[in-house]
């Protein structure tokens, strides 16, 4: 709208037509997707994102079929359609699949497809990382879903409370859940890192922080939440798996453990997770509503407030899943308060949509139908949420079908309806064809009616006394009719889903292409011509407005004719722009890697570790892990921090940008720091566990274990690791000054000191004879020490990698991405080590 005075403007003249064609050819060649069986080596966001979404949708259908099995079993009292044990597997897998294999992946996969398009980028900054995440997801997902066919599925409920899952369910199911989902969560964190860096650093020039499409704000917040929410669950899963596999008594009260710790860690993940699902779904609505109101959103700032505010507040809700565990009233009250407060930003968002509708000229459409249906449903779920958030009411409602009804209103209204709305809205961007309006409408009414018929009665079923997760119920308790109605509704709902699925997969060969920007939207993702090209955007535009397609004159023409940035791929390489965080000033022309099978190989070998671990085949599992490390090494070696043939490049509009940047200027450094932040959160969860045990024991460390791991070895370890860290810093400095000798000495010294430090931290509990199976105190000390040692060992890998890179001439004084990233990693190592030592050696002294 009001371009900044010194903004570059596209040239006024049309570039010669032959030049345009030549540029298009070169771009097309650079971004070509691989053909034949090599197609599966694609890493492009438009390919991987679509696979990802389609796979998540398949898992959704699978989870839906399980839901129908549940409903058949509960249709009549005393039913024996499913045995008790089978039923328990079915509801466990239903919940787990919907949460871990549908709701979260689908948010990330939709974002993988559309985030770059909304940001006018050619791809996300780490395409191979997305591909890696996808393959991890497929592998883990199939493994988990398959288990139910072999009667070996987890049966502990999707929140897997120990001691049921630690001691009373010996089968392989629980291990599958713990290791399989940890594996998938790692993939989810990888995707989150990518989305964060993508939103912050890969925007089009001029898209200042106040002009970002709302969808991207939501994705940014949700991805940041993933970083803080998933690690506690990974830490918890690790504790539980250690108890199952090696009898470390983290949740065994007889040996000092406590089952409640799991609930804290699980719900510290579990509640934010609901919002991680909800925010990106409502984000789709935030794109749809302005389009069909044909005006900018009203209350942009308010929505940002709501997204960020919800992101924070959602971390203060976890205990509301534990209102009946006998915690002090004051604690319950605090969480009750936060649970009510989070309704405020949610209300703000909904009123922003209503205000936009009121201020606009609404166009009727199928996406809008789903949007309104979703909001009506979600509001009801939100209101029952306000009810259960009140601890006093929850004492009755908790763990009954009332909660089942509530959570389905929230998740289906707040996520499934918006996602289907998104399907109908965004579908033309995939292949230029529209979904059927007629089928969409029929499906909508089936879904709405079926949904309410299924879940509205459940509020009463629950309050009349039916607990959740029961495989049957006696007749004449007042549950019979209500359950029968729910079952009928579930099949209507299923029919609606089937119609949507058919509409998506039905052949559309003979259907005409839709015109470009069929809904007359204002945001960048609608730039592509139909059908879209795989390069994403013809030239990367200079942005002056929140809705450039509406507000910037001649915008589409200028993009199409290549009058903006990067209209060409002269060197035949895939390229996109890196910009600054606040004002999106271009800082680098980033070369992106092309198709490769390496991410899939890495996923398979890493998956091997987790899957073999499930069966306690530890030796093959470790072999698989070593292979995975080798594959990843190769991946990094050939595919990252490649030294360009020239230092900088003209990208159009008179701008020349460097091709290589390192440290905080590079996207890779950001990825390392953000990933390590997540790892650090997992570590903090373990430290939390230590102090949690302190609060529940009168005597912690227990009198029997005088002094714990002692002071000497931990302090020695801290000293050694500090020295290793200092030498790593020195190595970076020596490299920058191009002093090969000093660099080599420093990096070798750092590696040796790190190894010694890792050994010393383990020597503490080892030499003092702490037995991790005897009591929870030695177990948690051992775990903290192991965690630190593992960090040191990984740090040594970084040292070795940097040493090899420099020796091979792939790292030089100027091209020092690798050592910069190693230093970033080592900052976290040293932080972890110092905290570990302070806790395991220092705390017993204070006490």
């Amino acid at each position: 709208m009001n371009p900044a005075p010194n903004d570059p403007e596209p040239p006024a003249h049309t570039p010669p037509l032959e030049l345009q064609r030549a540029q298009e050819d070169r771009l097309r060649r650079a971004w070509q997707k691989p053909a034949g069986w090599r197609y599966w080596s694609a890493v492009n966001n438009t390919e991987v994102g679509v696979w990802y979404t389609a796979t998540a949708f398949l898992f959704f259908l699978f989870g839906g079929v399980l839901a129908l099995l549940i409903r058949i079993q509960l249709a009549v009292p005393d039913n024996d359609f499913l045995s008790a044990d089978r039923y328990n597997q079915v509801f466990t897998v239903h919940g787990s699949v919907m949460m871990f294999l549908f709701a979260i992946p689908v948010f990330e996969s939709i974002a993988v497809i559309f985030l770059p398009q909304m940001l006018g980028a050619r791809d996300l900054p780490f395409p191979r990382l997305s591909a890696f995440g996808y393959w991890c997801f497929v592998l883990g997902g199939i493994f988990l879903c398959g288990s139910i066919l072999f009667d070996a599925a987890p049966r502990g409920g999707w929140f897997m409370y120990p001691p049921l899952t630690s001691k009373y369910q010996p089968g392989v199911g629980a291990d599958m859940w713990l290791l399989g989902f940890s594996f998938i969560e790692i993939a989810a964190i990888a995707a989150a890192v990518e989305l964060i860096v993508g939103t912050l650093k890969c925007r089009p020039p001029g898209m200042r922080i106040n002009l970002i499409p709302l969808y991207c704000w939501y994705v940014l917040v949700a991805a940041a939440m993933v970083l803080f929410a998933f690690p506690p669950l990974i830490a918890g899963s690790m504790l539980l798996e250690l108890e199952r596999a090696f009898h470390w008594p983290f949740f065994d009260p007889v040996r000092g453990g406590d089952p409640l710790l799991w609930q804290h860690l699980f719900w510290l993940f579990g509640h934010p997770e609901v919002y991680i699902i909800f925010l990106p779904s409502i984000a789709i609505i935030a794109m749809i509503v302005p389009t069909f109101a044909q005006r900018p959103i009203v209350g942009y700032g308010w929505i940002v407030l709501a997204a960020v505010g919800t992101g924070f507040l959602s971390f203060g809700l976890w205990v509301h899943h534990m209102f009946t565990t006998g915690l002090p009233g004051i604690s319950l009250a605090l969480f009750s308060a936060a649970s009510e407060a989070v309704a405020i930003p949610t209300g703000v968002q909904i009123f922003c949509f209503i205000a936009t509708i009121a201020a606009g000229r609404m166009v009727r459409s199928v996406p809008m139908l789903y949007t309104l249906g979703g909001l009506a449903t979600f509001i009801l779920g939100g209101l029952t949420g306000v009810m259960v958030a009140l601890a006093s009411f929850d004492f009755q409602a908790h763990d009954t079908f009332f909660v089942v009804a509530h959570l389905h209103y929230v998740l289906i209204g707040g996520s499934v309806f918006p996602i289907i709305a998104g399907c109908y809205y965004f579908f033309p961007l995939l292949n230029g064809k529209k979904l059927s309006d007629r089928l969409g409408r029929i499906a909508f009414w089936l879904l709405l009616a079926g949904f309410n018929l299924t879940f509205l009665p459940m509020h009463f079923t629950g309050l009349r006394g039916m607990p959740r997760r029961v495989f049957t119920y006696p007749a004449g308790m007042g549950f019979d009719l209500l359950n029968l109605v729910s079952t009928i509704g579930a099949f209507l709902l299923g029919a609606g889903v089937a119609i949507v699925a058919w509409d998506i997969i039905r052949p559309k060969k003979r259907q005409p292409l839709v015109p470009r920007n069929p809904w007359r939207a204002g945001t960048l993702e609608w730039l592509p011509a139909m059908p879209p090209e795989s390069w994403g955007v013809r030239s990367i535009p200079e942005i002056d407005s929140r809705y450039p397609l509406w507000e910037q004159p001649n915008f589409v023409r200028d993009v199409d004719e290549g009058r903006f940035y990067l209209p060409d791929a002269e060197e035949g390489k895939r390229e996109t722009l890196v910009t600054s965080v606040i004002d999106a000033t271009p800082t680098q022309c980033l070369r992106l890697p092309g198709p490769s099978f390496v991410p899939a190989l890495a996923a398979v070998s890493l998956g091997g570790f987790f899957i073999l671990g499930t069966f306690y085949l530890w030796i093959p599992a470790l072999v698989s892990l070593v292979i995975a490390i080798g594959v990843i090494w190769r991946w990094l070696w050939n595919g990252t921090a490649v030294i360009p043939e020239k230092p900088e490049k003209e990208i159009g509009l008179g701008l020349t940008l460097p091709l290589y940047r390192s440290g905080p200027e590079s996207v890779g450094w950001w990825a390392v720091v953000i990933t390590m932040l997540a790892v650090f959160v997992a570590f903090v969860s373990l430290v939390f566990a230590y102090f949690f045990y302190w609060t529940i024991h009168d005597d912690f460390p227990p009198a029997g274990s005088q002094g714990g791991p002692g002071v000497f070895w931990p302090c020695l370890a801290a000293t050694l690791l500090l020295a290793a860290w200092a030498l790593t810093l020195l190595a970076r400095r020596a490299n920058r000054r191009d002093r090969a000798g000093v660099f080599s000495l420093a990096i070798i010294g750092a590696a040796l000191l790190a190894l010694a430090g890792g050994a010393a931290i383990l020597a503490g509990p080892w030499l003092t004879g702490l037995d991790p199976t005897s009591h929870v105190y030695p177990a948690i000390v051992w775990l903290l020490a192991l965690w630190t040692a593992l960090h040191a060992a990984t740090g040594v890998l970084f040292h070795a990698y940097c040493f090899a890179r420099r020796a091979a001439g792939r790292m030089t004084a100027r091209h020092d991405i690798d050592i910069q990233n190693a230093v970033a990693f080592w900052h976290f190592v040293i932080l972890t080590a110092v905290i570990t030592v302070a806790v395991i050696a220092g705390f017993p002294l204070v006490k």
Partner: protein
Amino acid sequence: MMKSLSENRESLWRLIVSPSVWALHFLASYVTAAIWCAKFAPASGSIAPVRWLIAAYTVAALLAIGWNGWNGYRRHRLGAAELPHDADTPEDRHRFLGFATALLAGLSAIAVIFAAMAVVYFQDCR
């Protein structure tokens, strides 16, 4: 004026000061209550010291949030302020960040007050 609005002097961190203060307040209140009840509470289960501590946390948190919010509001009102702050200029970016900061401060303050209300109604560890 342009200089003071340069990108380098802006930070996303200021946006999340208030909700972070809420988080600290919340965590501190919860941890204080939990540790008191698990470790130090007298036989009567009284939480009198916890109530005073939470009251003190609340005053401190509201002061910090108020400062951050006021700061944001002033940035929002810079020059001829007109919502929706959607121009491609450093001024509007500055105003937008200020506006969002102020709103977040408001929400955080409400959340802190909600949490602090708990103190009024609970006397013991049950």
